[in-house]
């Protein structure tokens, strides 16, 4: 038995060797190399400790997904179930379920502990070490149980995983007595909660595997019929009426993945609002907002990897059985992405509004100086402008990523990831800077990393304008005109132009100094060009991908 367990451990580790090398060695090494440079370059406005923490999380996420992917190779699908050849090993089911999860837990927890010990001055108490190990183990075991087929419908998976995450968050909060108002038993309750989550995760992994091994009919299905009535999810009995192929493709894109964006953001919003109702700290709410932002940015990858654009996917049968033009295939994806982003955005902005309603406005904030002298009209203009700009940023980031990924090339994928990371750092950096920066709007704007980057490198923005103009000219030429005509692009151009005009009017109504106003206007022109670019790029990407 020991030999077989060793063989099983070897298989899991050997299959994961690339992920382990990247997660355990390459990322920490790169971080070590960059640390000096980063400290000099961005240390002024980004606390280096937080960047280090973010990189550690990235590495942990990488390790987790690597283990998760390998251990869920299935008999029929690459991303679901348990590797069936392992089921044929003469080992008890509990060993089969515990060994891979325990290994994943040990690797992830050891990595976190190692990182904190090496890269920070933070001293870890025994309780902290226990918490880290338990959280890693509980999360890995529960997510594996869900992946291995504990319950199949997507909605149930999301709800269950979010419930587990909520349970983990509350347990950790109780252990560390964040509110400093809990009872003396707070630590005990938190620890018990973690142990319960950890053991139940392992138990459900075992149950799931046992069911798979015996091929019995044990079902663990949550009845969430009320959610089905929302018509967000595939309905098995009612058939939709399609007016044509394009409308059918819209339905397909929405039902297959686009609905996940608002669904996820919506569920996080509910958790956030409930948390604020129970008096959770603003930091936790802010963390949730960051999580939602990440989900937004990831949405592009979700959408593009759905059929077109993923190397795992054989594009042939999908395109061969959808007699639609390249433009229609691209536009159905973009339109449904837009619908998903807009609905999700409504959830997104509801969180701060409802949280402020529930827990009230901050008593004194650093930025209050900046707004105390602003009139109500200007405040409303600023608020509307911010809402439009944030929506435009989310759309531009998601849709451009999606449009590029539709090309299905490794180079484009790397460019996309790099661009995303860059945008993410810039975006978070700007938020962190604005949050803690006193002074008037102009001073804050000028000192922000986004402003610095663009003002020092004006060619970055010129590239967008030039690229957009060149692409528009290209669509006048026969090879591109065959993909999409200007009349097909007109509607999308008009929507972006309307957004731009409204935003410009709002900026000018703020009566900023000429230089700041000009910079903001120029940035808006570029932002809305970026919003329009996916409609030019996506059809080209699809055409290049489809007709290789």
């Amino acid at each position: 038995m020991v030999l077989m367990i060793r063989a099983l451990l070897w298989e899991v580790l050997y299959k994961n060797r690339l992920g382990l090398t990247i997660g355990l060695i390459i990322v920490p090494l790169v971080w070590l190399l960059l640390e000096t440079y980063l400290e000099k370059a961005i240390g002024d406005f980004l606390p280096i400790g937080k960047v280090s923490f973010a990189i550690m999380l990235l590495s942990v996420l990488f390790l987790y997904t690597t283990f998760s992917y390998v251990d869920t190779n299935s008999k029929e699908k690459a991303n679901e179930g348990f590797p069936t050849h392992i089921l044929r090993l003469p080992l008890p089911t509990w060993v089969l379920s515990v060994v891979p999860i325990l290994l994943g837990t040990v690797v992830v927890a050891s990595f976190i502990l190692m990182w904190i010990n090496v890269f920070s001055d933070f001293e870890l108490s025994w309780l902290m070490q226990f918490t880290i190990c338990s959280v890693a183990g509980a999360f890995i075991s529960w997510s594996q149980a869900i992946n291995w087929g504990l319950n199949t419908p997507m909605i149930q998976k999301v709800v269950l995983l979010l419930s587990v995450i909520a349970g983990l968050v509350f347990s950790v909060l109780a252990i560390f007595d964040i509110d400093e108002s809990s009872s003396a038993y707070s630590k005990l309750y938190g620890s018990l909660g973690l142990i319960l989550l950890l053991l139940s995760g392992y138990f459900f992994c075992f149950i799931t595997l046992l069911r798979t091994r015996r091929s019995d009919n044990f079902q663990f299905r949550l009845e969430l019929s009320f959610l089905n009535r929302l018509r967000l999810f595939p309905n098995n009995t009612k058939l939709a009426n399609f007016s044509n192929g394009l409308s059918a493709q819209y339905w397909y894109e929405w039902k297959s993945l686009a609905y996940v964006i608002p669904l996820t953001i919506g569920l996080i919003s509910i958790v956030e609002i409930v948390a604020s109702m129970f008096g959770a700290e603003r930091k936790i709410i802010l963390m949730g907002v960051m999580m939602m932002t990440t989900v937004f940015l990831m949405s592009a990858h979700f959408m593009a990897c759905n059929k077109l654009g993923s190397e795992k996917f054989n594009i042939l049968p999908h395109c061969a059985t959808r007699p639609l033009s390249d433009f229609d295939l691209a536009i159905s994806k973009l339109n449904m992405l837009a619908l998903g982003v807009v609905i999700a955005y409504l959830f997104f902005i509801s969180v701060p509004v409802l949280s402020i309603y529930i827990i009230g406005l901050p008593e004194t904030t650093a930025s209050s100086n900046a707004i105390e002298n602003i009139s109500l009209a200007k405040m409303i203009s600023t608020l509307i402008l911010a809402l439009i700009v944030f929506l435009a940023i989310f759309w531009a980031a998601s849709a451009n990523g999606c449009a590029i990924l539709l090309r299905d090339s490794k180079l484009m994928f790397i460019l996309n990831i790099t661009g995303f990371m860059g945008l993410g750092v810039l975006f978070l950096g700007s938020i962190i800077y604005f949050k803690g920066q006193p002074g008037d709007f102009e001073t804050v704007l000028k000192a922000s990393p986004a402003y610095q980057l663009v003002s020092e490198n004006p060619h970055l923005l010129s590239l967008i304008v030039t690229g957009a103009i060149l692409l528009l000219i290209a669509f006048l030429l026969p090879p591109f005109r065959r993909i999409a005509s200007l009349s097909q692009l007109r509607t999308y151009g008009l929507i972006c132009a309307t957004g731009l005009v409204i935003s410009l009017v709002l900026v000018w109504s703020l009566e900023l100094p000429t230089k700041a106003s000009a910079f903001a206007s120029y940035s808006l022109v570029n932002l809305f060009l970026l919003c329009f670019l996916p409609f030019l790029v996506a059809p080209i990407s699809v055409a290049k991908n489809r007709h290789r």
Partner: protein
Amino acid sequence: MQSADNLIINIQGLSREFDKHKALDNIDLQVESGQVIGIVGENGAGKTTLIKHLLGLYRAEQGSVSVFGLDPVNNPAEVLGKIGYLSEQPDLPGWMTIAQYMNYMSAFYTGWDDSYASNLIKATSLDINKKIKSLSKGQQARVGLCAAQAHKPELLLLDEPSSGLDPLVRKEILSAAIRTVVDDGRSVVFSSHFLDEVERICDHLVMFSKGKIVLSAPMSEVLEHHKILIIGSDEFKRVGNSNIEKLPGLLRVKEKRGEYLVSLNISDDLLLSATDSLSLKIIDKRLMTLDEIFVCYCPEQQAVNGE
């Protein structure tokens, strides 16, 4: 096959390279409506690459591809609207039920016949409310075949569809489907590794080897013209190897247990005059099976068979 105006497929001088490997090498192929074309060849011979060109999924690097008189790359919607397609691994969305999938697919094709689609699905005896992901590979292939037929396509493209089907389904359902298409005056292009199936179903055989068409002829002609002559050792030595090699349509010569097996692609009349001119005495003569013809034309198969 090449004379009429009603060509539904017209491929001329088509070549395609992948990493300096010639997947297709100067292919010419014309298909009229009402034909069943069987494409055979060893793995990597270029069958799927050719079908991808017909679907507009590959752009012609050299030469031209025309389907229904249109370039499938520039007119994907028009061309694919008239094609029914099923591949070895049909990409059916697992989250849909069969009913949803058929309803979804119906929106794409103007010629979709609901009652015909319903009959096709009924013939599979599958529950239409079952999710596709819960079906076996063979059941999924049958659903894919129903969807490929339900709009009564002018051209049915089947890329090794039999791989996931059991012999009964292969023999009855697939053959019936193809016959229905042909009886309506429509066409089928069918690639397969099952040579008995190709022999039974197809009117015209196209054999690929290393990206080239090594044989393209009506099936009846292929079966009638390919023969094996059995010649005794003494007779072979008397006539001489150099004279045997001059025989028209010679494919290969193989020695087996003291006898020589000479494979030829030749009509009876030509064979008679050739043997007369050499005064060649033949022990026996028989027609080749499609398996033997395949091995003759595909060198890699000879190596596999240890010949």
